[in-house]
C-alpha cells in the first residue's frame, strides 16, 4: 500500500466507526467496540501482509477487517444481525470472521485469538502452506494467562506468528497502569525468547515499516515475532461507555497525535496530497459508507430456521 492508500484505508475505517457511532446515538442500534483511534495500527500491519497470510482478531476489529478488504456493507449487516452479514447475523459485531479474506476464528473472549493462533500456524506449517499468521490483541489480553502460554508454545514450536499487541492504554474500564508494572508488553514477550519491538502505533508508516520488518523476519526464520503498537482507544470500551472516567488531560495528547490527522499533515507537507484530493477522498469514503448503511438497512434478517443451522458440521 502506498502512503496515500494507507490514508484512504484509515479514512474508510474512521468513516465506518463514525457512522456506527452516529447510528447508535440516534436510537436503538446494536452495541460495538469501536476501533476509532487505532486505525494506523490496523492499516499499517495489514499493509505488510500477503493474501495467503491469516489474521486472527478480536472484538475491536472493524479497522482490521476494512483494511483487509472487507465490505463495510457486509460488516454493518453483521452488526445489525442481517442474513447478508459475513457470519449470516450469528456473530454480531463482536466476533466477525471473513474466511475468504483469511480473517479466521475471531473471538471476543479476551485472549481467545491468542489461544487459537498457534494451531492455525501449526496446521499451515505442517501442511507446507505459505503465509504467516497474524494475531491482533490488546494490552488487556496480555494480562490473560493464555498470552503467556501462547507465546511460550509458539517459540518452543517455532511457529510463524506475528503477535500484534495494540496497546491502547485501557483494559475495559481499567487503566493499563493499574494492571501491569511494565510499561510495554514487549518486555514480557522478550522473556519468552522471541524478537519484540514497540513502535508508535499512531503513525501508519512507522507501523507499516515495523510490520514489514517483522513479517520478513518471520518468513525468513519461521519463528514468531511480537510487535507492540502504542495507540489509544478514542471511544471508550464499548458504545454504551460514558467515558466519564477519562479526563480531558489524558485524552488531549492522544487526540493531538490522531493517526489520520498525522498522515494527512505528512502527505500534505510532502506534497503527495492536496486539499482537493483529500476532499475528494473524504467524499468518496463517506459515499461508500452511506451506500453501505442503505444496503445493510434493506438487507433481510435471517430466516427463522437459521436458529438451528450450522451448530454442527
Amino acid at each position, binding site marked *: 500500500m502506498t502512503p496515500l492508500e494507507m490514508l484512504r484505508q484509515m479514512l474508510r475505517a474512521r468513516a465506518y466507526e463514525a457512522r456506527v457511532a452516529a447510528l447508535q446515538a440516534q436510537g436503538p442500534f446494536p452495541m460495538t467496540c469501536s476501533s476509532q483511534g487505532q486505525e494506523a495500527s490496523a492499516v499499517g500491519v495489514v499493509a505488510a501482509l500477503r493474501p495467503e497470510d491469516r489474521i486472527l482478531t478480536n472484538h475491536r476489529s472493524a479497522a482490521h477487517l476494512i483494511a483487509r478488504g472487507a465490505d463495510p456493507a457486509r460488516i454493518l449487516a453483521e452488526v445489525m444481525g442481517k442474513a447478508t452479514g459475513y457470519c449470516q447475523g450469528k456473530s454480531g459485531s463482536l466476533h466477525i470472521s471473513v474466511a475468504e479474506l483469511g480473517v479466521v476464528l475471531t473471538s471476543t473472549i479476551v485472549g481467545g485469538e491468542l*489461544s487459537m*493462533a498457534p*494451531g*492455525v500456524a501449526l496446521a499451515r506449517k505442517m501442511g507446507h502452506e505459505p503465509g504467516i499468521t497474524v494475531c491482533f490483541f490488546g494490552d488487556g489480553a496480555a494480562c490473560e494467562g*493464555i498470552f503467556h502460554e501462547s507465546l511460550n508454545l509458539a517459540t518452543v514450536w517455532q511457529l510463524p506468528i506475528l503477535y500484534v499487541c495494540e496497546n491502547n492504554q485501557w483494559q475495559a474500564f481499567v487503566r493499563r497502569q493499574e494492571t501491569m508494572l511494565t510499561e510495554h508488553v514487549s518486555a514480557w514477550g522478550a522473556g519468552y525468547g522471541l524478537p519484540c519491538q514497540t513502535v508508535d502505533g499512531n503513525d501508519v508508516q512507522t507501523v507499516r515499516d515495523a510490520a514489514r520488518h517483522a513479517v520478513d523476519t518471520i518468513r525468513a526464520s519461521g519463528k514468531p515475532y511480537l510487535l507492540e503498537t502504542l495507540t489509544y482507544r478514542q471511544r471508550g470500551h464499548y458504545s454504551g461507555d460514558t467515558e466519564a472516567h477519562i479526563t480531558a488531560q489524558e485524552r488531549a495528547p492522544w487526540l493531538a497525535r490522531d493517526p489520520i490527522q498525522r498522515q494527512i499533515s505528512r502527505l500534505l507537507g510532502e506534497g503527495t496530497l492536496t486539499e482537493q484530493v483529500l476532499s475528494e477522498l473524504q467524499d468518496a469514503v463517506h459515499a461508500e459508507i452511506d451506500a453501505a448503511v442503505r444496503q445493510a438497512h434493506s438487507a433481510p434478517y435471517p430466516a427463522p430456521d437459521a436458529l438451528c443451522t450450522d451448530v*454442527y458440521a
Partner: protein
Amino acid sequence: MTTMTAHEALYRALSEEMQRDARVMLMGEGVATLHRDLVEAFGAERVRNTPLSEAIVAGCAVGAAASGLRPVVDMLYAPFLTYAMDAIVNSAGKLRYMSGGQFAFPMVVLANTGAGWGVGAQHSHNLEAWFVHSPGLKVVMPSTPADFYGLLKSAIRDDNPVVFLNDMTLLHQPGDLTDEAEAGLVPIGRAAVRRPGSDVTLVSYAKTVHTCLVAAHTLAQQGIQAEVLDLRSLKPLDMGTVLASVRRTGRLVVVHEAGPLCSVGAEVAAQVAERVFDALKAPVRRLSSPDVPTPASHPLEQAFVPQAAQIVQTVQELLGVPAEAQLSTS
C-alpha cells in the same frame, strides 16, 4: 477376535486412524514420551509433547482443526479440562455457529475420569454433563474395549469436536475386538442394549453399565428381567432407544457415577417423563454419586459410586417386591 484392554484398544484406534489419515495428530503432556511407537511410525511432527499448559494445548487444537488438521489432544484428567474450557466451549463449540458455518472443528479431546484410583477430586470428577450442556460439542463415554476402539475411530473421523471421556477403572479391563477395522467402527449417537429384559430399563454409561449388569443378573435370579442400556454417546443422546425400552418395560432406573444435579440422568428422566409418561408404571428413579467431591479414601470412594445392591433394591421397590422377599445382595 482379539482380546485387549480398553487402553490398548484406544491406541490401536489412534494408530490406525493416523495411518489412514495424515491430518490426524496427537498432542499432550507426555504423549511423545509414552508412545514412542507412534513417534516412530508417524514422526515427531504428528506426535507432540506439550507444556503443562492445558489452555493453549486445547486452543492450539481448535486453531489446527479449523485449519485442516484433525488433532487429538490428551488432556490427562478431566478436572484439568477446567483450564481448557474457553477453547473447548467458547471456541470449538461455538465458532462454527457464530461464524455462520465458516469453520469446522474436527478434533477429539481425551480425558480420564471416574472414581476407583483413590486419587481424589482434582483427578477424578465426572464433568460430562458440563460438555453435554455446551452447544456444538459431542460427548462420548464408552464402557467396553470394543467401544473405546470404535468410538475413538468415529470421533476422529467426525467433523465436530468430540469430548471423549475415559472412565479410568475401565482402561485396564480386557475385552474382545473384531479384527476387521472398519467393522469395528461404533457410530456416535447410538446406545447399545447390553442385556434385553421386559420388567425394568436400567440406563447407564461407563463403569456403572457393568454394575447394572451385575444387578440384572441378581434380579434375574428373582425372576425380574432388567434391560440394560449403555448410552455410550451422551451427546447426541439416543433417546429413541431409551424411550422404546421404557415403553416396553414401563419402569426406568438411571444409573451413573456423576452427581445428580443437572446430570445426564436428570435429562434422561426428564425426557422420559415428557415423552412416555403414559407408559410408566412407577416413578423414574435415579442412582448417582451424592453431590460431593470424589473422595480419595477407598471405602468412601466405594460409597460414592452406585453399587449393584442399590440398583437391585431400587428395582425391587419399583416392582413392589415386599421388603421381606427382597434378596440380600450384600
